[in-house]
């Protein structure tokens, strides 16, 4: 069943066209990884899906409803955003950050109730960060911050999570821990759309891949089909080799490294 459809969307920013005629569709429980070099339009595409950018041509549909016509709070109940780890001016407590996810379920003037706190705490518990709930967000590690933002997305009750380079800035161990959480959640029926700079991760998630280059879709499909030596070499303009290891895992290796 198609959840999100991007239908021949073009978008331009200050007269420069950033996306040309991009189409894609995401089903429930999918993990879509958007690959592409810097400036290829990945973040723009994510923002279009989140309703933050309005398409110049074409449409983004959430179950046949144009995203641009949905109220922010209705959209927020369905799609949550996990931004890149950012610098924050104020050191909110972790729990306070997760609680913000409850806003779309509240009337315009509101106070958080007991159930909001409960939902926020159980989202934190789900990601094993409940013990950090009273710590300032600015004082925990990058991985914990990312988990905090995912917990917020879960508390938001949305079943689709849009993540902008979720592993950016994380150490190797945290990257892997994060990816396995994403896989786990996807198995539970959560849908993920993420931009990433790591084709290996796309392969590992066993989801679908969309390759963007200069605002155009250059390849699309299941990760193991779409991520090939040719497509990667072309996309990043670096000779790449996609091979299977002896234990059956597909890896991407720069040709230069193979000697």
């Amino acid at each position, binding site marked *: 069943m198609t959840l999100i459809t991007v239908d021949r969307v073009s978008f331009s920013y200050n007269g420069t066209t950033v996306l040309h005629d991009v189409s894609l569709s995401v089903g429930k429980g999918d993990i879509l990884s958007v690959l592409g070099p810097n400036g290829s339009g990945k973040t723009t595409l994510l923002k279009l899906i989140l309703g933050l950018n309005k398409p110049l041509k074409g449409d983004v549909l959430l179950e046949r409803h144009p995203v641009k016509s949905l109220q922010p709070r209705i959209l927020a109940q369905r799609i949550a*955003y996990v931004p890149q780890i950012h610098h924050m001016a*104020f*050191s909110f*407590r972790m729990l306070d950050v997760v609680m*913000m996810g409850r806003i779309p379920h509240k009337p315009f*003037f509101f*106070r958080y109730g007991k159930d909001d706190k409960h939902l926020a705490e159980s989202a934190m518990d789900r990601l094993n960060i409940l013990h950090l709930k009273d710590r300032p967000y600015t004082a925990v590690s990058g991985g914990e911050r990312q988990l905090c933002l995912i917990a917020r997305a879960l508390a938001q009750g949305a079943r689709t999570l849009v993540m902008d380079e979720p592993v950016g800035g994380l150490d190797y161990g945290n990257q892997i821990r994060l990816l396995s959480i994403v896989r786990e959640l996807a198995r539970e029926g959560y849908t993920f759309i993420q931009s990433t700079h790591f084709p290996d991760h796309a392969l590992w998630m066993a989801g679908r891949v969309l390759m963007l280059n200069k605002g155009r879709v250059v390849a699309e499909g299941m990760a193991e089909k779409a991520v090939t030596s040719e497509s990667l070499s072309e996309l990043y303009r670096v000779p790449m080799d996609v091979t299977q290891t002896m234990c059956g895992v597909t890896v991407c290796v720069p040709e230069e490294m193979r000697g």
Partner: protein
Amino acid sequence: MTKPAFTLSAVTILLALAALGSLLLGRYPVSLTDVGHFASWSFHGCPPGNGQDMDMLRNILLDIRLPRIIGAVLVGAALSVSGTAYQSMFINPLVSPGLLGVLAGASFGAAFSMIFFHSLLSVKICAFGFGCAAVGLSMLLARMYNGDRLLMLILGGIVSGAFFTALLSVVKYLADPYNQLPAIVFWLMGGLSSVSMDTLASLWVPVLLSLIVLTALSPYMNALSMGDEEARTMGVPVGLVRTTIIVCATLMSALTVVLAGIIGWVGLVVPHLTRMLTGPDNRILIPASALTGALYLLAMDDLSRMLFTVEIPLGILTALCGIPFFVLVLKNARKGWS
């Protein structure tokens, strides 16, 4: 009792005590017994001494000190809350309520009225009107260009503030140097000496309403300090919330100018101080900074009227105390924001 609840009640009690204490403070000697006599006289109608004294006491306590105390509480709360709201909304702890030009506009309005119309009411109306107009101008300027809305607002505020500051200079230049110019200069230094019950009666409602609205919007301020786009993806109607915050903060700041002239630094220092007490969560920070702001300005005003026979303009005092305080706060502020 949770920690924020404890902080809030402690500050409330302190504020109540300070307000009562301020009733006893002043150049005119009034003792606690006098106040007791006065209270019993007002409630039971039996003067313990002679009636003449009671009239004088009523004059001092109810006509002179009470409006000043209420004025200080309102102005202090209004300035700190607008400062806090702006700091959260602009994701910048160095922002003050004058960011969008409201103080520059109000200063110009008051000065303009002082030289062209000759009534106290017109000064108030012009200060309020031009304060709002200056913010309107910066919002209009911000709309003229594409780009980051917050940044454009700040730039709009700079332009609008500079414009009205320039107009103020023109008015000062045109003013006659004997009476009008000093009147403008002294007015700009701020002070609560001319606050009367009549003025308060017409202003406390909008100030209190804005305070309530901003407190009600405080959960959104948390979300807004994550950035506009992120807030939007959390279902926050960013434009509506931001406009409401700006309108309320502008209304309150402009009304403080009407009440007390230009009082600087309160809207910058008090939010910091409060954030150190309560943390950055606006749901507690907003009401807490209203209370601390009120307490701070009340103390400043007591100093202003007590220190010498001559009154030190309140705006000078808040700046003199605020700046070193700010230096200290910045040094220790890593805890509240980094």
